[in-house]
């Protein structure tokens, strides 16, 4: 039996470098300050056993054998699940050839499948991975029509060249102001468009071979888009509907009276707290951005960072998304940290530390069908992060990361740049171009 005394990434990396096989490694983490991602209370001195890429056991006491990682009391969490992400779809946001999120000149909308565009070699994936992100739920943005196509879930495992997990798991739909703009200028136009498209999709589903027979030539939905939307109607793909204003949320919830099998995820939802009871009663999950507290538009007038806390208090299942950030890498822990901070302001509502961590791990995993992800419980995928401090503090960072039990490199293109220019390093006497950090 071999024990790695955990004292930072270097020790782990060195130890693993000696022993790492290509396949997932069995190991045991001892002395973990565990927050398991389910919202359960933090537990100190925890032992996590990993076998065949899965969490075999979570308990206390020593390791039964094999490689042992001593976390020395450090925080251990599941890998973060980045929902609302563009990881793998964007290398440089402003360079169109490396930005797959919009397809404004395509004749297709709902039929677009982000799985076809994901690039696991994107440097943004490495940057996000060393921040503790192990899974991402990626999607494009509607550009021509209301529909943004199918999103997909990926693993960020550096050892896995085919990271796709769930393809075509959900369809992105813009309503509210964006939907109104895309549909021709009003919310009424957006709903007319949505309902027409869904009824066309229903017609397709009834008889695919006859789809389009007898229709006028100016039909507004292509066959491919109709086929894609038929999966929204029958519930085999979720509908992630971007909506903010309270009245728009109510109206979207009504869709299920016409399409009872439709599975809705509300996204954005800035004014969700005003209709939290109705969202809870409809049993519809929400993904929302914590850091929104400005009336950025007339549909987010009531935006507050108490939004998520108030919805959760009303019984809504809410995951965090980091959409709309300036960088392609998410700031999930910092976002979740705001929710804890908000609870400490008189008159505001936040989340507990454990709830906030659940909102960036198990909850988005559950909402988007990443079963067995985002939690450290027996049977779960061994996506595990050891931190050098409280995971939600901006000062903290991961020191070791496993995905499906595979030890991950703690480097990225950014760490190479930083190492090359680190003022603590001695001058080599040659241009920086000759310095190639590991």
């Amino acid at each position, binding site marked *: 039996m071999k024990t790695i005394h955990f004292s930072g990434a270097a020790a782990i990396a060195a130890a693993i470098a000696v022993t790492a096989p290509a396949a997932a490694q069995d190991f045991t983490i001892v002395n973990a300050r565990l927050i398991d991602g389910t919202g359960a209370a933090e537990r100190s001195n925890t032992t996590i056993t990993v076998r065949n890429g899965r969490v075999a056991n979570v308990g206390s006491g020593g390791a039964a054998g094999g490689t042992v990682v001593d976390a020395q009391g450090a925080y251990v969490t599941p890998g973060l699940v980045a929902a609302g992400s563009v990881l793998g779809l964007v290398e440089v946001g402003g360079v169109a050839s490396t930005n797959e999120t919009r397809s404004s000149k395509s004749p297709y909308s709902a039929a677009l499948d982000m799985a076809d565009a994901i690039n696991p070699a994107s440097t943004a994936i490495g940057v996000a991975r060393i921040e503790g992100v192990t899974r991402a739920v990626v999607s494009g943005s509607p550009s021509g029509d209301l529909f943004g196509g199918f999103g997909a879930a990926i693993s960020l495992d550096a050892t896995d060249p085919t990271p796709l997990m769930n393809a075509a798991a959900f369809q992105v739909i813009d309503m509210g102001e964006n939907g109104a703009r895309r549909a021709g200028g009003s919310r009424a136009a957006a709903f007319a468009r949505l309902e027409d498209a869904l009824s066309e999709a229903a017609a397709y589903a009834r008889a695919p071979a006859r789809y389009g027979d007898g229709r006028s030539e100016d039909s507004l939905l292509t066959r491919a888009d109709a086929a894609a939307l038929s999966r929204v109607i029958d519930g085999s793909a979720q509908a992630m509907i971007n909506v903010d204003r309270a009245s728009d949320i109510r109206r979207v919830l009504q869709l299920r009276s016409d399409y009872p099998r439709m599975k809705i995820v509300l996204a954005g939802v800035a004014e969700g707290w005003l209709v939290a009871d109705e969202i809870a009663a409809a049993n519809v999950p929400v993904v929302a951005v914590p850091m929104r507290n400005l009336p950025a538009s007339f549909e987010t007038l009531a935006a507050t960072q108490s939004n998520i806390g108030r919805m959760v208090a009303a019984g809504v299942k809410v995951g965090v998304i980091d959409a709309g950030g300036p*960088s392609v890498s998410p700031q999930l822990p910092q976002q979740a940290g705001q929710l804890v901070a908000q609870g*400490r302001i008189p008159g505001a509502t936040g989340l507990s530390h454990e709830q906030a961590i659940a909102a960036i791990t198990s909850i988005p995993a559950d909402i988007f069908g990443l079963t067995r992800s985002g939690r450290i419980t027996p049977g779960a995928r061994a996506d595990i992060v050891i931190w050098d401090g409280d995971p939600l503090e901006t000062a903290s960072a991961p020191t070791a990361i496993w995905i499906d039990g595979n030890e991950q490199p703690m480097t990225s293109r950014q760490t190479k740049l930083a190492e090359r220019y680190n003022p603590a390093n001695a001058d080599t006497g040659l241009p920086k171009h000759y310095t190639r950090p590991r």
Partner: protein
Amino acid sequence: MSRLRMALALASAAALTACATAQADTAGPKSASSSELPKRAENPYASTYAPYGSQTTVIENANIYDGAGGKIMGGTLLIEGGKVAAIGTAVDAPADALRIDAGGKWVTPGIIDIHSHLGNYPSPSVDAHSDGNEVTGPVTSEVEAQHGVWPQDPGFSRALAAGVTTLHILPGSANLFGGRGVTLRNVPARTVQGMKFPGAPDSLKMACGENPKRVYGSQGRMPGSRMGNFALYRITWQKAVEYDRQWDAWDEKVENGTAKAKDIPKRDLQLDTLRGVLDGEILVQNHCYRADEMAGILDLAKEFGYKVSAFHHAVEAYKIADLLKENGTCAAMWADWWGFKMESYDGIRENIPFVHAAGACAITHSDDDIGIQRLNQESAKALADGNRAGLNILPETAWTWIGMNPAKALGIDDEVGSLEVGKRGDVVLWNGDPLSVYARPEKVWLDGALLYDAGSGMRPVSDFELGQPGEGDTK
């Protein structure tokens, strides 16, 4: 020439007081008596800000980051007459002072954001509110951010609740010469004049790189490349140098009594701003991402005889930190933004601490209405990343990135940026360690006046938010 111009400004200010109205520059030829020469209105749109009512306040049992790199554990801060009157471990406070027991909580100076568009890109961000870029020509040094600031922007109140007490509003980066920036006190006001930081120098916003060449190149106009950017900088600065020379000659004649009204040079508002830069009265705040371009701008400044106060965004500042130090130019940066455009592709999380470690002046800035609420967290992030990379920067040192350093780069460091005796009483009492993600201000004072109090719910609500859903919420 700077000193001469300053003397003239004082002289004409006195003249203005005497005759109460400003005369236009178009007066006809007159005799050489300087009292009859055309006068220019000095300091139009002047600040009308005056501190709000304050009481002598003593905050005891506080841990303090003083903003200048110092830390006091278990300290006391006395605010009297709106100013920092005393700070230390043993402070004599008047018996009638309002006593606040911080109970070991933290006190810092009010945060300064050197790069904000609150007011000129306000919420709601509808087209009708888009007043931050004069996108009609690449050289618009005649426009001023103050004329596009909407004081009812709800963003100001959010920044206040996050401990921001002073902020610099800049024109956007569409243009090579974007116009003048304005420094504001973060007080609710009906007018921008009511927010203006009295006596703070104006800035000139300049921009490098992708934005100007994209905006104008796409219209088939210059600049359409980085070459064009620099050519147009140089063409414009050359005009400014010649303009400055004409006015210097005129000022000299005024000084020695030989000036004749008919000889007064024609006034050009665009070049006036640039002359102010050449005279050191207007500070250049230069949007620039790439290291090689920043180096080019530093040479440009030498070529025409001005100084760059700070590079903004400066995503690659870490590559040229030595040049920044050498030139006395600050870098205002994000902690971790990167990848949103080609010129931000080489962003690293250690940018701020690496610049600091090289002995240059590092600043954490926001450029964002949400980011301005998190400048303490962003600084904490950068601090930790730097130390993880092997540096040894103290938390109290990191607070200079949102304290003294932006104050210096804005030319207001004799009044704000730190809790030194005699400075404005801009103070934040935090509910926890202010470098923690969980910390929020409990109370915020500007010039000793309590303007935000989380406990009592005292917070400003802009006219726009009255009668709207969520009015007066904790936000």
